[in-house]
């Protein structure tokens, strides 16, 4: 009698992130309105303002613009990578703090047979979904502009955006599961996300920077994505550099994953 009341009920279902996808779908159905303008509308304002209107005043040849035929074609791959990075940052700062400290969603999920890695992977799938939806919508519409030079440019650019989103999201996730409070997030946005957006070769070619700053820009995680997306859209590949870009992003995402799992275990599993 006592044994049956104290032993938790073991179900035959194996723990897997799949069980959480329904949770994330419900979350998305209830909150998508809160992200529709920042993810789908505001990038267009930037494309029109910076790419089309300001771009009309730019006097530069394709050699200066890393092979892009116009400033619009130059700036668009950069801006969409920056957008993916921002989605990655947005999904892993306040929402993670909310699940960990405010709403305690993680604790609720851990009270089931789910493991820390299941919870993390389900959330990553959701982040991928968020990056993918914005990336696909954006890239499809942009393919009507004269930006993507090869038929495989657009799908490749979407792939790059996903990689950038993950490489941005996972290290920030690792920070967010360890952060004491949310007040550091605005510093992360202002001192990391905005400088990365503005100085990673998205708006102007990094070759115009002084040599020291150019070198620094080449180390920036966002530049890896911007460079890949730009090579994908112009069709002008520099294979060793592309390999370096991909390896960098994959390593960053991988390291971020491991650090996040470790951090979550420490914070959540007694």
């Amino acid at each position, binding site marked *: 009698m006592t044994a049956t009341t104290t032993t938790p009920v073991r179900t035959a279902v194996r723990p897997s992130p799949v069980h959480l996808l329904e949770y994330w779908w419900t979350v998305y159905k209830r909150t998508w309105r809160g992200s529709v303008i920042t993810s789908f509308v*505001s990038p267009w304002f930037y494309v*029109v303002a910076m790419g089309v209107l*300001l771009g009309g005043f730019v006097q530069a040849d394709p050699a200066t613009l890393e092979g892009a035929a116009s400033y619009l074609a130059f700036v668009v791959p950069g801006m969409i990578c920056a957008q993916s990075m921002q989605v990655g940052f947005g999904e892993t700062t306040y929402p993670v703090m909310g699940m960990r400290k405010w709403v305690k969603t993680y604790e609720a999920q851990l009270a089931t047979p789910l493991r820390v890695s299941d919870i993390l992977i389900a959330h990553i799938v959701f982040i991928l979904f968020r990056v993918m939806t914005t990336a696909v919508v954006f890239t499809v519409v942009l393919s009507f502009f004269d930006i993507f030079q090869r038929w495989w440019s657009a799908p490749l650019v979407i792939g790059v955006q996903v990689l950038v989103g993950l490489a941005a999201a996972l290290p920030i996730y690792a920070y967010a599961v360890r952060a004491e409070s949310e*007040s550091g997030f605005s510093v992360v946005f202002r001192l990391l996300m905005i400088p990365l957006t503005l100085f990673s070769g998205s708006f*102007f070619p990094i070759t115009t920077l002084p040599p020291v700053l150019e070198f620094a820009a080449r180390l920036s995680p966002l530049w890896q994505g911007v460079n890949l997306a730009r090579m994908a859209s112009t069709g002008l590949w520099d294979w060793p550099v592309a390999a370096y870009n991909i390896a960098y992003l994959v390593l960053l995402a991988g390291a971020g994953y491991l650090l996040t799992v470790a951090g979550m275990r420490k914070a959540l599993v007694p």
Partner: protein
Amino acid sequence: MSSVFSPLVRVEGRRLSAMQGAGTLIHRNFLVYRRDWVVFVTGFLEPVFYLLSIGIGVGQLIPGFEVNGHHVAYADYVAPGMLAASAMNGAIFDATFNVFFRLKYAKLYDQILATPRTVGDVARGEIGWALIRGGIYSTAFALVMLVLGMIHSWWALLAVPATLLIGYAFASVAMALTTWIRSWQDFEYITLALMPLFLFSATFFPVTRYPTWLQWVVEATPLYRGVVLCRELATGAVGWGSLVSVAYPVAMGALGTVLVRRRLERLLLT
């Protein structure tokens, strides 16, 4: 004995002037930010990053523009625009996110109104605080412009007071609009209004880029007037027409303040 109880007996509280009444809330905000000074300090950096990236970085690809018959280098053209835009952004951030949190979650205004302070004190205090914060940022940004050699006239001394007008106009109207906001998701509407103002108000390129009817529309928007005023002051191209750009934010701010008081009275005192 009577001296112990005397504070309790004076139910009317200390008689404070309108200025002192607003001052108590400003003092409260100062005490809060003293603990979060990193957030305060980094708030100034965002427009500086934009200036360096778009103004100087992209500026290398753009020959510059004419302002009232003077040729102006692109970075010098963007800098006053960023000065005005950051005054708007700062004021709106304070008057929306922060005010919403205090109104709905922290219940700060309920607490204040339980004392002898009035809704007028709350409105003046919050708008006053937004102005002080904005003024500090604007002064710092103007000094950056000076160091980078982007200021060409003594008129520029009036640029900081001009940003206070912009801040006043936007802070009061934004705070009034915040009283209608229901949840964090509604902030998407604020973003929706803010992004086009930021990008299309002649901040980055002249309105001559638009068709004539659209130029008229843009010229009637509040940030455009602020950008024009700051640009005229920084380049020294001041004329009688500049007074329009002074009267506009004053009227807008006064209207907003009246609205805030009436809305707070309805929300909190009935």
